[in-house]
């Protein structure tokens, strides 16, 4: 029981991070119908920038957090403006290759800037671990869960209550109809890219204190985030959270009860299974029939 609870805590913590990454995929997919293969690199950039700004430059925590998100959102903006919008033939295979190219490029740049070594950051608060029924819960986990909850609620408010959020949803339903109504759809796409990159960087900021961060962490996290998004149903925010949690818990249980070698394989088996059996995801209602 105690063991189970311990694995559950670690699973939920990791799951929350997968959920944030999945939300980044979902956000962009909803607004543009695009899957960004460089999403994981935003997480990596978030984690490494946070370490540099907070640990290296000794900025206060909130300032480092905001600055990191802003910088990575800017990278996302540049990616849309310089690479995605200039494409003449927006065929999926072309966009996949471009975002893969962007991912390799960002990874290469990160390797030059931060080197090949792994870095770590201290946790956000210096509180002692909490003990619940013999299992320990790190305060960082609470931080992570709190931030993820805040993001999900913030996204709901953004989509339901603000004009920009509604406009973005309109673009997702039909770009042409939205622009006929006077919605600047190009600006919405740009905004979606910045938001989804920012979301990825928040995932990175949150993960920095609980794992070692290095230039090559992005691909794995991006894939897991995508897996979480697919698991819950691509396009649904709650689905992303649900999928992230599911994946995190499954992974933790596989590591705990079988072997730590399995950790990374779990996500891919789940991904292949879900792609095969139910591409619309566990919570998704609309069938995935894009392209």
């Amino acid at each position, binding site marked *: 029981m105690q063991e189970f609870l311990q694995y559950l805590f670690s699973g939920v913590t990791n799951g929350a991070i997968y959920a944030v990454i999945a939300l980044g995929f979902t956000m962009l997919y909803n607004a543009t*119908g*695009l*899957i960004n*293969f460089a999403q994981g690199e935003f997480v990596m950039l978030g984690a490494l920038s946070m370490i540099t700004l907070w640990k290296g430059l000794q900025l206060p925590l909130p300032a480092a957090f905001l600055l990191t998100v802003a910088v990575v959102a800017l990278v996302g903006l540049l990616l849309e403006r310089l*690479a995605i919008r*200039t*494409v*003449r*033939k*927006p*065929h*999926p*295979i*072309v*966009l*996949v*290759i*471009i975002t*893969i*190219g*962007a*991912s*390799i*490029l*960002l*990874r*290469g*740049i990160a*390797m*030059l800037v931060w080197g090949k070594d792994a870095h770590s950051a201290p946790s956000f608060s210096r509180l002692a671990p909490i003990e619940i029924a013999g299992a320990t819960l790190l305060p960082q986990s609470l931080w992570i869960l709190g931030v993820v909850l805040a993001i999900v609620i913030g996204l709901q408010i953004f989509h339901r209550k603000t004009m920009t959020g509604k406009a973005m949803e309109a673009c997702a339903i*039909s*770009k*042409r109809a939205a622009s006929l109504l006077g919605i600047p759809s190009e600006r919405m796409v740009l905004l979606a890219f910045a938001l989804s990159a920012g979301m990825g960087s928040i995932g990175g900021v949150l993960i920095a204190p609980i794992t070692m961060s290095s230039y090559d962490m992005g*691909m*794995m996290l991006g*894939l897991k985030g*995508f*897996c979480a998004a*697919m698991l819950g149903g691509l396009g649904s925010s709650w689905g992303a959270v649900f999928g992230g949690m599911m994946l995190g818990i499954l992974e933790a249980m596989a590591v705990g009860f079988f072997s730590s*070698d399995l950790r*990374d*394989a779990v*996500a*891919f*088996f789940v*991904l*292949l299974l879900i*792609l*095969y059996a139910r*591409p619309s995801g566990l919570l998704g209602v609309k069938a*995935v029939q*894009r*392209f």
Partner: protein
Amino acid sequence: MRKLKYGFFLLVIMAAGLGITNSYYLQLLTFIGINTLLALGLNMLMGYAGQISLGHAAFYGLGAYTTAILTTALNWSPWLALPAAIVLVSLVAFLVALPMLKLSGYYLGMGTLGFGMITFILIRQWSTVTGGDSGLVGVPSLALGPLSLASGKAYFYLVWVVVLISFIVCERLVDSRVGRALRAIHDGEQVAAAMGIDTSRLKIGVFVLSAIFASVAGFLYVHLVSFISPNSCDFLVSVRLVTMVVIGGMASIWGSLLGASLLTILPESLHVFSDYEMIVYGLILMIIMIFLPQGLTRGLLDLYERSAAVYPRKVKSREPADE
């Protein structure tokens, strides 16, 4: 005309084999041949059928590891290990393709990426059989009866004859009914299906074919360097393969040769390349896809034709990217 082309190609191979005595250059050319095989196989999948694979290094690695394990641990003859590797890889490719090719576009990309990662992880973790991170050493070199193929020159001929054969196979395939059907799938899968093409069978077929090419390349590679490690099949290798296809030009058989040559020679000629490798690949992929989505060969030809206005420009109408 076509026979003339192949004859000329063979002549060039002979001339290169006779003329080049420097063993370093011979080995470089051999590597180009192996990479051409890989690029050619992937090009059949990406260029002609329009299906992306971001995990192709897995088939290369599986082919190499199968023959390496069979010939070292079990002392099989390489010529028995080759069909075994091909059968195993085609079986794996078939099983992977069965669910995967129901997907397309982004989902196929993610699925194949995941498959490549799983294979890489399994090869690394299953260290009792694969040697883990340190890999396998002492893979025997090839021999044809009494004729040893251990020398650089013999191996060079072997690889390039295989390349020539695959060129002939691919060109014939592309010009056949199957090739036309593949291109129809590329242009519009539903239309192709409506024309009576069994799209899923063809897609699975071309996926397996390209995996077989990769496994043969893996076989040739591992018996040349007599060593294999997980690094030979990690994600960056898959990206390198996609880059070769993209540079050479999708749906261009001879473009595969160009792409493979460029990406084999470039890292060799730039010694500082290793640290910048990822940046260079990333930029190449993005720039070519943005400006010359047809690849270097086709793209430059198009530019030439447009400026010379020799042929009337083909106008392709395209629906706006809205659903």
